[in-house]
C-alpha cells in the first residue's frame, strides 16, 4: 500500500497571532512552525501501517523552502520520502489542484491527512482532492483499519460516531482518535540522522487558479474586563447570567 500524507506547515498551537502592519499577511516573526496537529495524527497512523503492514509513506506539502524543516521532521518520525511542491499555498482550491497532480503521478492507494489546518481552518483540501481525483472520501475520521482493499473507518458525527466501510483508493481526513496523543512520535537522534539521507524532492507547481482571496485580517476585538463575583455571592452570578447576559 502506498500512502500519500498531506502536511500543512502551521504556527505552533501556542503562537500569538499577529499580522503585518497593513494587515494583509500573517506575521511570521518569532513564530515556531510545526506539522499541523491534525496532519500529525494522520502521519502517525500512516507510519503504523508502514510498521505493521509494510506500507510506504510519502509526505507532501505545498510551500516555499521555509517549510522543509517541517517535512524533515516528518521524515525523522518515519516517513519514507517527502515531496515539496514549490509554490505559495494561496487557497484550498489551489493546494488541492497541486496535490492531485502528485497523486496522479505516484500510483498511491490512500491519501491520509488532517481534517483541517489550524491556521486557515478551511477544511476543504481533502474533500476537493477526492473530487478532483474522482475517488471516495471520509471526513473527521477517528478510527481506521485497512485489510487488502477494504477500509473500515469511524467518523465523528454530531453527538456520536458512525462506522463506515469503503474500498481503496480513498481520501481519509482525520483527527485525534486515528491515533491517540500518546502514540505521537518525537523524532530521536537516529531518526533525525536518517531523515537527512531520505529523498526530499522539490517539484514545480502546475498551472492553476484560485477561487478565493484574503483581502485582510482582523484580530479579535479587545474584550471588556471580566466582571468578578465574590465566591460567597453566587446569587449575584445567577442574577448576572439571567438579567445581563440573558443566557439562563
Amino acid at each position, binding site marked *: 500500500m502506498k500512502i500519500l500524507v498531506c502536511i500543512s506547515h502551521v*504556527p505552533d*498551537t501556542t503562537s500569538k497571532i499577529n499580522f503585518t502592519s497593513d494587515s494583509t499577511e*500573517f506575521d511570521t516573526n518569532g513564530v515556531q512552525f510545526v506539522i499541523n*496537529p*491534525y496532519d500529525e495524527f494522520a502521519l502517525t497512523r500512516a507510519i503504523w501501517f508502514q510498521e505493521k503492514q509494510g506500507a510506504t509513506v510519502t509526505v507532501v506539502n505545498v510551500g516555499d523552502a521555509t517549510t522543509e524543516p517541517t517535512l524533515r521532521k516528518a521524515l525523522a518520525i518515519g516517513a519514507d520520502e517527502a515531496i515539496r511542491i514549490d509554490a505559495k499555498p494561496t487557497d*484550498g*482550491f489551489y493546494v488541492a489542484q497541486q496535490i492531485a497532480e502528485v497523486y496522479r503521478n505516484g500510483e498511491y492507494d490512500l491519501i491520509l491527512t488532517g481534517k483541517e489546518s489550524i*491556521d*486557515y*481552518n*478551511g*477544511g*476543504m483540501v481533502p*474533500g*476537493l482532492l477526492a*473530487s478532483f481525483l474522482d475517488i*471516495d*472520501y471520509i*471526513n473527521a475520521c477517528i478510527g481506521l483499519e485497512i485489510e487488502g482493499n477494504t477500509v473500515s473507518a469511524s*467518523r*465523528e*458525527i*454530531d*453527538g*456520536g*460516531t*458512525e*462506522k*463506515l*466501510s469503503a474500498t481503496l483508493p*480513498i481520501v481519509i481526513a482525520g483527527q485525534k482518535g486515528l491515533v*491517540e*496523543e500518546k502514540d505521537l512520535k518525537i523524532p530521536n537522534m537516529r531518526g533525525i540522522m536518517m531523515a537527512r539521507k531520505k529523498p526530499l524532492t522539490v517539484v514545480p507547481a502546475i498551472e492553476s487558479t*484560485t*477561487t*478565493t*482571496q*484574503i*483581502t*485582510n*485580517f*482582523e*484580530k*479579535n476585538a479587545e*474584550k471588556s474586563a*471580566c*466582571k*468578578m*463575583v*465574590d*465566591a460567597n455571592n*453566587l*446569587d449575584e*452570578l*445567577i442574577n*448576572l*447570567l*439571567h438579567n445581563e*447576559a440573558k*443566557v439562563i
Partner: protein
Amino acid sequence: MSVLVYADNSEGKFKKSALEVVSYGKALANQLDTDLTVITINATEPEQLQKYGANKILFVKDDSFVFNAKIYAGIITEAAFTSNTNIIIIDSSNNGKYLAPLLAAKFNAGYVSNVVSAPSSLAPFTVERKVFSNKAFSNTVISADSKVIGLAKNAFEVKEEPTTAEIEEFSPVLLSTSVKSESVEKASGKIAIADADIVVSGGRGLKGPENFKMIEELADVLGAATACSKPVSDMGWRPHGEHVGQTGKPVAANLYIAIAISGAIQHLAGVNASKTKVVINTDPEAPFFKAADYGIVGDAFEVVPQLIEKLKAFKAENA
C-alpha cells in the same frame, strides 16, 4: 437566480443550525433582491421552513436514505442547477463540513468555511470568516462565479420571516460510492457539545475523574453538555469526545462555564466563539480570567455544590 440553502435535520427535525442557515440565506436573498430556495432530505415537516422565509422548498423523501456525503452533495448540486442558483449555503455541523467541499467541487464553486456574517460587499463578493482557530478573522473574496458558504455555528441569529412557499418533491439522481454506513452510535441521554446552548467544562484542577460528578450534576441542572480540557482527556479521566479546545471540539455556545481550567491559549482558541464565558478558579492569575465575562476566584469543591443548589432553586422559581 436564487439562493439555495441545504437544511440538515436530525431524525426528521430541524436543528438550530439549520434554521440559522435558512435565516442567513434569506438575509442574503434579500440583499441580492432574489428568492430563497431550500432543499431538505427526509425532514418530517419541510413546510416549517416557510416561517423563516423560504420561497421554495424542495424536499426529498426516501426512507432508505442514510446520510452519505457524496450522494447528498450530488442531490444538492442537482437542486442548485434546477433552481438556477449560484450561491449555496450550508451549516458547520460534522455533516455540513463533510459535504461542503464535495459540493464546491461538483458545483465548480469557490468555497469558504467558518463564515460569521452576511457579505460586507457583493462586488467583489466579500465575507468575514474565522481563521487561526478562532484567534482572528479574515475578509475573504470569493472570485469564482459560483459560491459555497459554510456558516459558522451560532454566528447568525435565527429570524422569522413568514412566507408562503412553493413546496415540491424532488427526485434526484443518486451517485454511486463505495462508502457505506454500517452503524451509528449516539450517546444516549446526553446533550452533544455541538448542539448545546450551554456547556459546562472541567479541568485538571478537579484532581480526579471521580470529581466530575459535580460537573455532570451542574450540567444536568442547566440542561448543558459536559466537556473537559485537553489534559483531562489525555489522562483518560473523560472520553476524548469531551475534549474542547484548538485540537478538540470547538465550542460556540451561548454560555460556557469553565471550572478549574487555567485557560491555556489552545483551550481559549477552541471556546472563545462562545457568547458568555464564566470561569471558576482558585488562582486569580489564571489566564482564563482575561478571556471570561464573569469570574469567581474560589475553590470549585466549595463553589460548584453551592452553585448547583442555588441554580436548582432558581430553576424551580422560574419554571
